């Protein structure tokens, strides 16, 4: 198992290498002078030269890449062109809210969606099944911002149960953090509940037709045990896959949610950076996103081996 983990982590190195190369070339290979792009339309020649100098654009491409990667490995992601702050610091300040929303969303989605899917499959073809499926169609068709504003209207403005927007760090007390987390989490998890419930139901329906489920019933054990012990564990692999890829896709959902609830996360940071053409920040965000993808995929594969003894690498 440990050897497998090690090999998988080693295998991730070339992937990240390719991503780094792509990110590096992103700036260098855009048509025109990168310095001119960075400086904007009204730049003086001196400013252009300064930018070239600071980015090392006068060196050969290979040397530039090596210097850049070397800095990267030392945690230096460059300096923002807008705020002049180190990029790593900017991301560090913004990462907590985003990670909080993403994790809360995925946990809530799994807790709600998996039982819904199991029940729908178990009661396949009945009104319960149709109700769950109807709910999931609704979940798919409601955009995050619509759900978000609806929730704000009802629970924050009308009922005044929770604050309208904003974010408090969990380190400043759980209560304020939790209060402000509920609505964004609910809004964002809507679509994931729909997705995971659907997938769970489909995977369960597949498994319920298997011979070993018939064997389990022939043993005379009760239906709950048949569902949980025999069916769900076998249906888990495709469900885990969806949860994993869903988590990776969450990043885009987080951007919208952060805007709706006015939360200072990396989603907003990215949007701002793109609008301002703050290339160092954009590069860092691409690297970070890829890293999350790679790690999540690694976790999914590890989960496979834990869930299914037949899968060995």
């Amino acid at each position, binding site marked *: 198992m440990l050897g497998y983990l090690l*090999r998988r982590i080693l*295998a991730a190195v070339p992937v990240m290498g390719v991503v780094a190369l792509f990110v590096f070339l992103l700036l260098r290979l855009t048509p025109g002078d990168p310095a001119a792009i960075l400086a904007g339309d009204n730049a003086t020649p001196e400013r252009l030269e300064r930018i070239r100098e600071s980015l090392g654009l006068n060196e050969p491409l290979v040397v530039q890449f090596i210097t850049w990667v070397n800095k990267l490995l030392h945690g230096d992601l460059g300096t923002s062109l807008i705020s002049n702050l180190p990029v790593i610091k900017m991301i560090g300040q913004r990462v907590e809210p985003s990670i909080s929303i993403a994790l809360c969303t995925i946990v809530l989605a799994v807790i709600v969606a998996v039982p819904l899917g199991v029940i729908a499959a178990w009661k396949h*073809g009945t009104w319960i099944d149709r109700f769950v499926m109807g709910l999931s169609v609704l979940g798919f068709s409601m955009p995050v911002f619509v759900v978000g504003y609806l929730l704000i209207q009802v629970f924050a403005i009308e009922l005044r149960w929770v604050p309208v927007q904003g974010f408090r760090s969990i380190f400043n007390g759980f209560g304020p953090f939790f209060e402000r987390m509920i609505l964004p989490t609910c809004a964002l998890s809507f679509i994931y509940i729909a997705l995971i419930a659907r997938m769970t139901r489909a995977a369960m329906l597949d498994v319920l037709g*298997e*011979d*070993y489920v*018939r*064997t*389990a*019933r*022939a*043993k*005379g*054990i*009760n239906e709950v*045990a048949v569902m949980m*012990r*025999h069916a769900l*564990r*076998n249906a888990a692999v495709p469900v885990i896959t969806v949860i994993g890829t869903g988590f990776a896709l969450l990043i885009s959902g987080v951007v919208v949610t952060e805007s709706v609830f006015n939360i200072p996360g990396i989603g907003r940071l990215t949007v701002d950076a793109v609008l301002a053409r703050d290339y160092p920040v954009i590069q860092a965000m691409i690297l970070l996103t890829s890293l999350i993808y790679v790690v999540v995929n690694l976790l999914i594969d590890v989960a496979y081996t834990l*869930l*299914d*003894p*037949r899968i060995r*690498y």
Partner: protein
Amino acid sequence: MTNTILDINNLVVSIGKKPKGANIIDGISIQVRERETLCLVGESGSGKSVTSLTTMGLLPKGTLVPTGGSIKLVGEELLTATDRRLRQLRATKMAMIFQEPMTALNPVVPVGRQIDEVLRAHTSLDAKARKKRILDMMEQVRLPQVERIFASYPHRLSGGQRQRIMIAMALVLEPKLLIADEPTTALDVTTQKQILTLIRDLQRDHGTAVLFITHDMGVVAEIADRVAVMRQGRLVETGPLETVLRNPTMEYTRNLLSSVPSLVPRAPREETREPVVLEANELSKVYKERAFFGKGREVVAADKVTLTLRKGRTLGIVGESGSGKSTVARCIVRLIDPTSGGVRLAGREIADISRRLLQPHRQKIQIVFQDPYRSLNPRVTVGESIAEGPVNYGVAHGDAMKRARELLELVGLPADAVSRYPHQFSGGQRQRIAIARALALDPDVLVADEAVSALDVSVQAQVLELLDEIQKRLGIAILFITHDLRVAAQICDQVVVMQHGRVVEQGPAAEVLTHPKEAYTKALLDAAPGRNWDFANFRAVAQGVGATA
């Protein structure tokens, strides 16, 4: 007078919830007594599995519904019992083992825990007592190293071992009734023999009543006390084993028995001087498992296999699963590339030529696969399927379709079948279509890879007859891959016996199957179920004829 354990009386099972659905089971009555094995025999669709599932209360909900009659287990009515009561009865009073040991066990739970579940559901024993009882039961089903197997996952065990686990699971609470639904059909003959003996012995020790479902007359002859023959949901005939085998009263039973191929090889045909059309020379296939780091694993699937086949002759490759017989067939047809060795097809070496150069030779060798339900494209008409090959080789579409019609008639189907789709045909008819498709290219060699194994005996007999007739008319050579020695005895001129990728013995069928020289061939013949019966002639095999080790 022994007690009746299972009493099925005038049972009717219908399709669906709506009234007047078709009857799948139409008024059958059978009894199984203590210490008795009743074999329920019939071809596919006869309703034998539905009968057993109805008894266990395991019919798929809503699709099949018992609508009449009664099923009594030791006097207790099952059809009106609550779900709760049925759950209590399962595993304690009645238990079932299934056909596919490969899929009948949960792949993600160790087998010991799967047996333990039965004890946890139905007894109040503590963990230690349960484990002791399970290990004891596992020893009774003659599993080796029970402690190790207890903790193993199903995929670590062989098919035979899994079926032993299923039997242990079924019998651990000593039920009165054991229902065995084709429990040995998916197993090799040697394993089948062990499992049948095991069921017999356990039945004797525990006094269990066994309802044994099978399509295989050989198995019936081995294990049955009494036989019930089913057809299309009705009971055709019941009686003691000897009576049914020797003096069947009903026409259907007679036909069924006559269709069982004899283990006594047919009379050898004259030696032939026809040219050799197919030669395999020291053919080997090694599968290498590549590892990301470290050393890979090697599996030798075929090891220096040499064989020759003359025009108009049939060569059989027989062996159990994993013997490499299909690998050899696939290497010869070049569906997979052999690792080393040569294949000469009509005098031309084809083992190592490129796919492009191979193309003109492909039409000389064609293959028919085992499963007719999966080997024909469901979205393409039968005619297009047959014509596809010739069209690939430049025949005009119109001509190819005309030829398809002729071929369909040759294989005994109406010519207008060209415009129909595979799902409109039965398994046997589909296999005829697959044969017509193979013949469309006028091949010199026809490879039949377990081509009759998925078919019912009566259909099997017809397809074998068809192959024989086609061979006579077209002079085609047939390479016949089978695990079934009975089939091999009836169609092959020469046989090659394979084990672990190697050829163990080869020679004329009449010689190898009656006077085997190698121990493995002897063991195979010895394990063939019902070897002492000559079913087609309703008598025991005369001493001195057939397989004697």
